[in-house]
């Protein structure tokens, strides 16, 4: 479903990587590895269509992403480095709006249920700025629970700053996504193992 052909990327004066080629079928997971500065985040943003590669193509369901980004965006859930939540809004408001942008409408009740699952029960109405770092990250990740309609998940360091319980929760959602036939591309410094699902690795050399 997701194909990358000969991707090359230049940032500033450096060539970060060249000749990246891979294919991801339904139900497959890709783990992008590499030392800091090797271009993992850049590659993920390239796959989303936020950046244009120096050369090479990205194809989603056979269509080139550059020509028609909208079809990719309709199926994409992207969680980047930045938590992408507004400090002045509550977790519930952030969740509802974050999903609305991607085309998924949720009721406040559905949102609260998910936030409860992510350990924010009773704090759904609190502005993000009043939450701890860990709670903030969990509020940002809660989108995963309602992202069933999105066939492609691209997650940049989803496991950072999470405790063991939260890590399990995220992994459970990833497994569910794969079982549904969706794809996941992610970066992580921790070893990730999902029962019943193989992980393809992509190593970005320095």
């Amino acid at each position, binding site marked *: 479903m997701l194909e990358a052909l000969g991707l090359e990327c230049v940032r500033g004066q450096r060539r970060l990587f060249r000749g990246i080629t891979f294919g991801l079928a339904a139900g497959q997971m890709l783990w992008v590895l590499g030392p800091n500065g090797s271009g993992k985040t850049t590659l993920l943003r390239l796959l989303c269509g936020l950046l244009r590669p120096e050369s090479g193509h990205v194809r989603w369901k056979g269509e080139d992403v550059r020509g028609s980004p*909208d079809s990719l965006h309709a199926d994409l859930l*992207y969680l980047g480095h930045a938590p992408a*939540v507004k400090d002045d809004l509550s977790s519930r408001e952030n969740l509802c709006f974050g999903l609305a*942008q991607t085309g998924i*409408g949720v009721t406040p009740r559905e949102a609260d249920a998910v936030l409860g699952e992510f350990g924010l029960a009773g704090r759904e109405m609190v502005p993000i700025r009043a939450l701890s770092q860990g709670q903030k990250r969990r509020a940002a990740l809660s989108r995963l629970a*309602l992202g*069933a309609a999105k066939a492609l998940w691209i997650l940049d360091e989803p496991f950072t700053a999470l405790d063991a319980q939260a890590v399990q929760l995220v992994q459970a959602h990833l497994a569910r996504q794969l079982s549904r036939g969706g794809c996941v591309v992610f970066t992580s410094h921790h070893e990730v193992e999902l029962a019943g699902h193989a992980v393809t690795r992509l190593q970005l050399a320095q």
Partner: protein
Amino acid sequence: MTALGLAPVFAAVIRRDLTLALRRRSDVLTTFFFFVIVVSLFPLGVGTQSSMLRSIAPGVVWVAALLASMLALVRLFASDFDDGTLEQLALSPQPLVLLVVAKVFAHWLVSGLPLVLVAPLLGLQFDLPAGALGIMMLTLLVGTPCLSLIGAIGAALTLGVRGAGGLLALLVLPLYVPVLIFGAGAVSAAVAGMPVSGHLSVLGACLLIALVLGPWASAAAVRIAIE
């Protein structure tokens, strides 16, 4: 869970930006009071002779509106850029151009519309006749959205750049000149008792051009900034 089309997403963007603006009321009020103070300073600087005040009023109010509008522009995309929500907006299946229109509209409601409403009161300080006050409101009503639409381009181009505020002024003020000329010109004509329809139609044309080309350029600038 439901699938959302363009209209609900458009409305959601407006609602979100308005909610954020209301929770940060101080930012909004600062722009408003800046406008009021700047206009009120002029008589202190140039004297209070009625006929002179009447002749400089259109220009003074309009320039103050320009400056206040620019102060407010910095807020349009900057906080979204910093916390990562802007790139999420760019990843929406809905066209970024239209979401930018939504953001600019919400921004105008909060920073432009109050200026339109308070301008007649300020016009009274300058001894403007009632007819001219009405024209002043009308020109600001048509002109301030223009300023927001054009200014959004500059705001997007200077995202995350050092000295963004000053640079934004340098980039955007020259582009404001036609709106200033016809907006202030209309009010001056009204004060002199001359017809204003010509000025107003040009101002309307400026708004149409800004509405068609502005968001497109702003969206392109946003994409360049989040690369």
